[in-house]
């Protein structure tokens, strides 16, 4: 395993800022790009976009159902609509619009869930989105993805703008370190990104949880001599079954990590595939248990539920029978 973390890059931008700057860059030449917001241009980092391209931003006000419905109408009339709203509201309040107006009607809206997972921290469970993967995975014709770092974010936005498919992208608010890999392959939805390789176990993570998984892998290697593979499985649907099959055959154990309920998300998606494909080695889903979370900042909440360097390292040791 090489050194996946470059210290000077720790503290890179929040993915959301990269979303905004990438969209702004694309909007310069593509006048069909439209940002649709629900009083969310500030939290979506779209204030500069709105100032530069006032004709390419549509403010809906706080009305998420309408946000998605209008975005579907814009998309069906040829606009590349990016509907930007806090993930908690976008994927719960407007779920029927996502299902019918976007996915079922095949209107290529780019749904951007911001401040996702427990990014809002102590604002509490009304503002947490721990259901979105589960809810959206069950809807046909919708790509569901959570980029891990600034690189994946930029690539995902560019691909989203270029493709003509309904999709949901989920972003948190934290500064995300750039992840480097030994051999970078072009970013594609539905193709997981191997950040580092090791044969003892595999962390399969997505979004902002890839970084703590990587930290845990480093800790395990340095302190225990345990070699872990870390995968950014940025696309929860469609899942990279080819990569999963490879991992199933080569690894000693699998731990999935997500900032989402342990029900219905990345972990259960992987479990479903693995169980149906003769995987019989240790397996553990790490996420938020079935409860309204403890009060705290995002980091405190994740730490509380073991989504941290320490917590994931301990989970790995237990799973391998070494603790």
């Amino acid at each position, binding site marked *: 395993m090489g050194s996946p973390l470059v210290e000077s890059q720790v503290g890179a931008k929040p993915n959301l800022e990269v979303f905004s700057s990438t969209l702004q860059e694309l909007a310069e030449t593509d006048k069909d790009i439209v940002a649709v917001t629900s009083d969310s241009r500030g939290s979506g980092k779209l204030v500069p976009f709105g100032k530069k391209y006032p004709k390419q931003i549509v403010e809906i006000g706080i009305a998420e159902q*309408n946000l998605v419905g209008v975005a579907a109408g814009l998309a069906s009339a040829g606009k590349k609509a990016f509907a930007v709203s806090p993930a908690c509201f976008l994927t719960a309040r407007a779920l029927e619009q996502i299902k019918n107006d976007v996915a079922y009607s095949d209107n290529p809206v780019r749904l951007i869930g911001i401040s996702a997972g427990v990014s809002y921290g102590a604002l509490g469970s009304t503002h947490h989105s721990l259901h979105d993967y589960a809810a959206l995975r069950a809807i046909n014709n919708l790509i569901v993805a959570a980029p891990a770092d600034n690189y994946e974010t930029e690539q995902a936005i560019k691909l989203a703008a270029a493709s003509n498919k309904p999709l949901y992208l989920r972003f948190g608010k934290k500064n995300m370190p750039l992840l480097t890999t030994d051999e970078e392959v072009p970013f594609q939805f539905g193709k997981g990104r191997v950040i580092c390789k090791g044969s003892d176990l595999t962390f399969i993570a997505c979004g902002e949880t890839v970084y703590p998984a990587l930290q845990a892998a480093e800790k395990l290697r340095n302190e225990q001599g345990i070699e872990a593979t870390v995968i950014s499985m940025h696309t929860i649907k469609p899942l990279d079954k080819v990569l999963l099959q490879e991992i199933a055959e080569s690894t000693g154990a699998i731990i999935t990590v997500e900032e989402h309920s342990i029900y219905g998300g990345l972990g259960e998606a992987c479990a479903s595939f693995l169980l149906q494909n003769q995987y019989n080695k240790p397996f553990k889903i790490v996420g938020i248990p079935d409860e309204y979370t403890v009060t705290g900042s995002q980091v405190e909440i994740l730490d509380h539920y073991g989504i941290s360097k320490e917590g994931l390292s301990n989970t790995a040791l237990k799973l391998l029978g070494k603790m």
Partner: protein
Amino acid sequence: MTENELAQKSNQYRQRILKYIVGANAGHTGGSLSCIDILNVLYNYTLNVSPQNFSSPDRDRYIQSKGHCVEALFVVLADKGFFPEEDLNTLCKYQSHYIGHPTKKVKGVEQNTGALGHGLPISVGNALAAKMDEKDFRVFTLMGDGELPEGSNWEAALTAAHYKLDNLCAIIDKNSLQITGSTADVCNTDPIDEKFESFGWAVKHVDGHDLKALKEAFDSLPFEAGKPSLVIAHTVKGKGVSFMENQISWHHGVPSKEQYADALKELSEAL
């Protein structure tokens, strides 16, 4: 098309609606009969949409928010040549594209609808795109009065007025009945005109079975520059078949063989 020819269309459409509902042994009979005159005028007089221009970005858009009355839409689309009318013999049958709500698998259908309160927001998006691209197509959406309590309608009504979408026309098929009872008893939305006017819309009332009045209303769009337009079409649920008119049981009642014969007889005599 002369006034008389247009009136004959409505009558023929009513007969076909009943034919295919009987064939499918399912359908929204009362509402399809209440909105068919509106659809007749839209497709045979007002809309710039045809099988030939359906893929043109400049075509007018018609989105049926009250998707359950799909039988009315399907018979009109068939008549306009979007697909062969005999396709409707498969309505609601195993593996047919012709399901009980509008679907884009059927040529001529703009959006998959059926869940209520969705047509207006999508129409607002279409109308907004037209304004952004400086295109002059118009957007029409047909809503039922029973779907007005859906909050998404009012969200979209605000947006339509905020963006001064005078290329948008919503039509309410106000037959005053829904599955549980009268709309006034279930959840009173009157006065609809004052509500929409206060939201920034221009509103006209029309007899929804008066073809001439419907034509005139659509000819006068937009009712006011810079405002979205609302046509409140006063209709009769089950219109044209006396034993169905204003009877809630015909919301999705399917005629028996005898009732179907009686209905056809009445409609034929009215031709």
